């Protein structure tokens, strides 16, 4: 049994109190003295040349302080991209400038053209209406295949084409993979779309810039998952502000899901304008603005081929993907369809040859970047769909076909560069079948049939790479950043601790879980541990929270720092008890000399550290505060089996999700309640993608799903109660907690399970439908049923 409040137990979340009483402090809750308001005027066309921007009328409007255009940023850099991809021919990717405000051309609906700063938000908006902006429409490229045509209009005229890169992985496997597919007993081919999504954290983005003339220090309050990354990118590459003169604060942040990783123009603008105007400048995104300025997710078009031998063993896998980059390269965009996608194409299976080709394409759409799962949902979707299709073509059970090809020995070196440390895929599959009552499915299907409905059951078995990532490895792969994490553990004289972590919590509950770990290590009450995050002035340089990395990387850094603290505290305790360091044990908040009844309390030692009257000053310094930076040795590899049960109304094509079961292996779990909550949320987003969410452009590049009236967010009545389980545990072998990460799994494993379930229902109803592209709206399902 886990200790109450310690690792493995589910104490209530401490952060809930402020969120439940309206005392949370989100960025939009911050109002600074003398604050002015920024309103961004954005392009309403997808592609056009800016002929003129008339500001006179707007400047004369009440309350207007200044109107900014690109001309004000001539000395500033563009928004940088954090990852460089090399093409198959050895050339580096084409990397266009991403200006803060549009320079000469607008390249997507929502591209910012000018900013009005006024005394009130209403005045800024009113004046925005009075700007006289003349734009010459240019033909837009929206569809990726059209964008690659010889005569396609160029999104960036200074680039040779709309192709960002043409990446092959692993290039050395290409010929062998082609040959194996030619010689295979059976090849299953599938063409599919991974639909474009919008992350839609419920808190829209906010930026508040502030400037202190007396210290020449700029401060940015922003809705970020990684304030240190924003400080580095914005300071060094955009505004030329040294880190010691720039503070970035990300207070309570209302969800992220990837969309709040990236450095955005509005952050740089508000920081810049606050200094230019010598007063705080605030911007709060409206939801409509969020749809056309937050980075979008997914948007892949893929052809996948799976080759099998006569005994149904997988022999080779080849995929070709077009990945939409949008109009500019967002911070991590180039890495998503490549290193976060290609490296996962082996899945859970012993496929000896894998070759992945990705062409990244510029279009006149909002930039596309990481969204929950980021590359791994795209990999899992292709693989788990093509395996189901292969099983149907071969007339074998899709579960048996998976099991036959499962990797069973670890560590396992895949043909796509990564090495899985641990896993037990049969165990998670067994667990799924047990808790989803798979055995009872046929009875339930008969019941549905009797009511004129079609019932289907679909599964998927995913693997993902989390805990991003070993810095030396990602550096070789083109990352322009390190991906370690940091923590400082500061012990106060009276024994309480403050952990300052580079990880960031925007819903994940770190204030609770990180305190659980420290509480366990020292044996003190979790209430004595304060977790501080989200402020570059208070935390050591850290890379932030995304890619399910917080506990695996940030938690590990915290453990390492706490270990240093404990080692020093043991020396102090040894001195106080006149014993050898090596004889000191720490348990339940007391230091004991092993094998004796001599002990001192944690608080006695911490006090001695700061009041060193009786202290080994010749050996160690006073004080008790340590910092650790943890750079992981490998990715972590959570995996799991997901099962979806649907009922389909053949008259309307409407799909109802009756049950969804997730059997995950996350390694060790710190707080089961929080882990399950993460899975629930991921499932809802994955089901949303598969069933209803779709970010749609018309052929002219108008975003036709730019509000909650048009973009279908899953609501409570769209979802069932979930069955989730994390009792299959193969601990990670290379981090101190044995943890793997759980944040993205739900969104990765669920879309293929749902689509497989719908196709199963259709086949049971006699409809020989091979594939339907997501989202499986009633119209799409019904149309497919008509043949």
């Amino acid at each position: 049994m886990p200790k109450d409040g310690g690792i493995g137990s589910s104490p209530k979340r401490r952060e809930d109190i402020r969120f439940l009483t309206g005392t949370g402090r989100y960025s939009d809750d911050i109002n600074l003295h003398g604050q002015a308001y920024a309103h961004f005027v954005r392009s309403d066309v997808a592609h056009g040349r800016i002929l003129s921007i008339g500001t006179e009328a707007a400047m004369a409007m009440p309350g207007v302080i200044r109107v900014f255009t690109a001309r004000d940023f001539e000395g500033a850099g563009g928004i940088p991209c954090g990852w460089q991809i090399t093409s198959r021919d050895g050339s580096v990717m084409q990397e266009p400038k991403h200006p803060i405000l549009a320079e000469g051309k607008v390249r997507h609906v929502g591209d910012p053209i000018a900013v009005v700063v006024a005394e009130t938000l209403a005045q800024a908006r009113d004046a925005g209406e009075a700007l006289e902006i003349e734009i010459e429409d240019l033909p837009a490229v929206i569809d990726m295949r059209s964008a690659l045509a010889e005569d396609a209009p160029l999104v960036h005229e200074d680039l040779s084409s709309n192709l960002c890169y043409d990446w092959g992985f692993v290039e050395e496997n290409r010929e062998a993979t082609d040959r194996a597919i030619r010689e295979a007993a059976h090849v299953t081919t599938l063409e599919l779309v991974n639909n474009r999504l919008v992350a839609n954290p419920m808190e829209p983005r906010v930026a508040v810039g502030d400037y202190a003339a007396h210290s020449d220090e700029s401060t940015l309050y922003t809705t970020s998952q990684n304030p240190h990354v924003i400080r580095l990118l914005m300071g060094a590459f955009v505004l030329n502000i040294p880190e010691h003169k720039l503070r970035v604060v990300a207070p309570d942040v209302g969800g992220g899901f990837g969309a709040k990783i990236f450095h955005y123009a509005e952050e740089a603008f508000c920081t810049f304008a606050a200094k230019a105007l010598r007063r705080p400048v605030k911007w709060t995104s409206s939801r409509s603005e969020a749809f056309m300025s937050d980075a979008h997710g997914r948007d892949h078009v893929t052809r996948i081929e799976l080759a099998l031998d006569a005994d149904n063993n997988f022999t080779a896998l080849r995929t070709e993907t077009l990945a939409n980059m949008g109009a500019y390269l967002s911070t991590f965009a180039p890495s998503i369809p490549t290193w976060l996608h290609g490296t996962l194409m082996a899945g859970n299976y012993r496929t000896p040859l894998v070759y992945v080709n990705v062409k990244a394409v510029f279009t006149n759409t909002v930039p596309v970047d990481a969204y929950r799962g980021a590359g791994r949902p795209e990999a899992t979707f292709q693989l788990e769909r093509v395996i189901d299709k292969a099983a149907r073509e071969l007339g074998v059970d899709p579960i048996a076909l998976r099991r036959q090809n499962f990797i069973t020995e670890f560590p396992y070196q895949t043909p796509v560069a990564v090495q899985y440390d641990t896993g037990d895929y049969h165990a998670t599959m067994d667990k799924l079948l047990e808790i989803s009552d798979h055995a009872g499915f046929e009875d339930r299907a008969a019941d549905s049939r009797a009511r004129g409905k079609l019932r289907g059951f679909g599964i998927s078995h995913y693997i993902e790479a989390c805990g991003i990532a070993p810095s030396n490895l990602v550096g070789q792969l083109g990352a322009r950043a390190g991906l370690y994490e940091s923590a400082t553990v500061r012990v106060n004289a009276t024994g309480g601790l403050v952990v300052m972590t580079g990880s960031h919590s925007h819903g994940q509950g770190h204030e609770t879980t990180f305190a659980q770990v420290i509480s366990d290590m020292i044996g003190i009450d979790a209430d004595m541990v304060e977790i501080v995050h989200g402020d570059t002035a208070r935390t050591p340089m850290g890379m932030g929270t995304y890619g399910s990395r917080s506990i695996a990387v940030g938690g590990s850094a915290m453990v390492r720092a706490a270990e240093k603290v404990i080692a020093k505290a043991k020396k102090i305790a040894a001195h106080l008890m006149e014993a050898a360091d090596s004889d000191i044990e720490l348990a339940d908040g007391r230091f004991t000399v092993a094998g004796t009844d001599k002990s001192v309390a944690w608080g006695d030692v911490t006090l001695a550290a700061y009041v060193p009257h009786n202290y080994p000053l010749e050996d160690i310094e006073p004080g008790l505060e340590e910092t650790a930076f943890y750079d992981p040795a490998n990715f972590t590899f959570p995996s799991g089996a997901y099962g979806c049960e649907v009922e389909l109304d053949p008259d309307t094509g409407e799909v109802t999700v009756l049950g969804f079961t997730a059997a995950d292996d996350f390694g060790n779990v710190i707080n089961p309640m929080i882990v399950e909550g993460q899975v629930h949320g991921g499932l809802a987003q994955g089901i949303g993608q598969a069933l209803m969410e779709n970010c749609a452009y018309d052929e002219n590049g108008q975003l036709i799903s730019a509000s909650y009236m048009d973009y279908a967010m899953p609501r409570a009545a769209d979802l069932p109660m979930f069955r989730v389980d994390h009792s299959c545990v193969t601990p990670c072998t290379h981090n101190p907690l044995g943890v793997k990460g759980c944040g993205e799994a739900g969104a990765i494993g669920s879309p293929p399970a749902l689509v497989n379930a719908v196709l199963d229902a259709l086949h049971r109803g006699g409809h020989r439908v091979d594939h339907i592209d997501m989202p499986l709206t009633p119209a799409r399902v019904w149309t497919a049923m008509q043949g």
Partner: protein
Amino acid sequence: MHKVSMTVNGRPVSGEVEGRTLLVDFLRVNLRLTGTHVGCDTSQCGACTVHMDDQPVKACSVLALDAEGADIATIEGMANADGSLSTIQQAFQDYHGLQCGFCTPGMVMAAAALLRETPRPTEAEVREYLDGNICRCTGYHNIVKAIMAASGQEVVPVAAE
């Protein structure tokens, strides 16, 4: 500018607003009651849900002047008089019905309105009632459980350990 007066969480308040000022902005900006949130601009997300004369309303869809003389209740007034969490708030914490916390005030206000109308709702009734409140974090699973529990009905405890 116009003068507007109302009662918020039992306290009489007044302020100067434009005709177009929304109730949610009056609460957040004039009164600095920032617990009520704004998550969209089409009256869909429900993060701004408050009670107006005991009815749940989206405060982004009510003009401040239309609340003249009204009795408004917000998340800041939901705790018990001694400062402890109310039954609904406590259930949200007990059943992990919130993650990032941004939709939470609206969810709690919607839940309170539901339980006033329907003291023992079924799961389907809870889900249906929350149609106007969007959460992106929880998948609603634990929100539904929290509301069922707050209504005094038995639900499966949180997380197998």
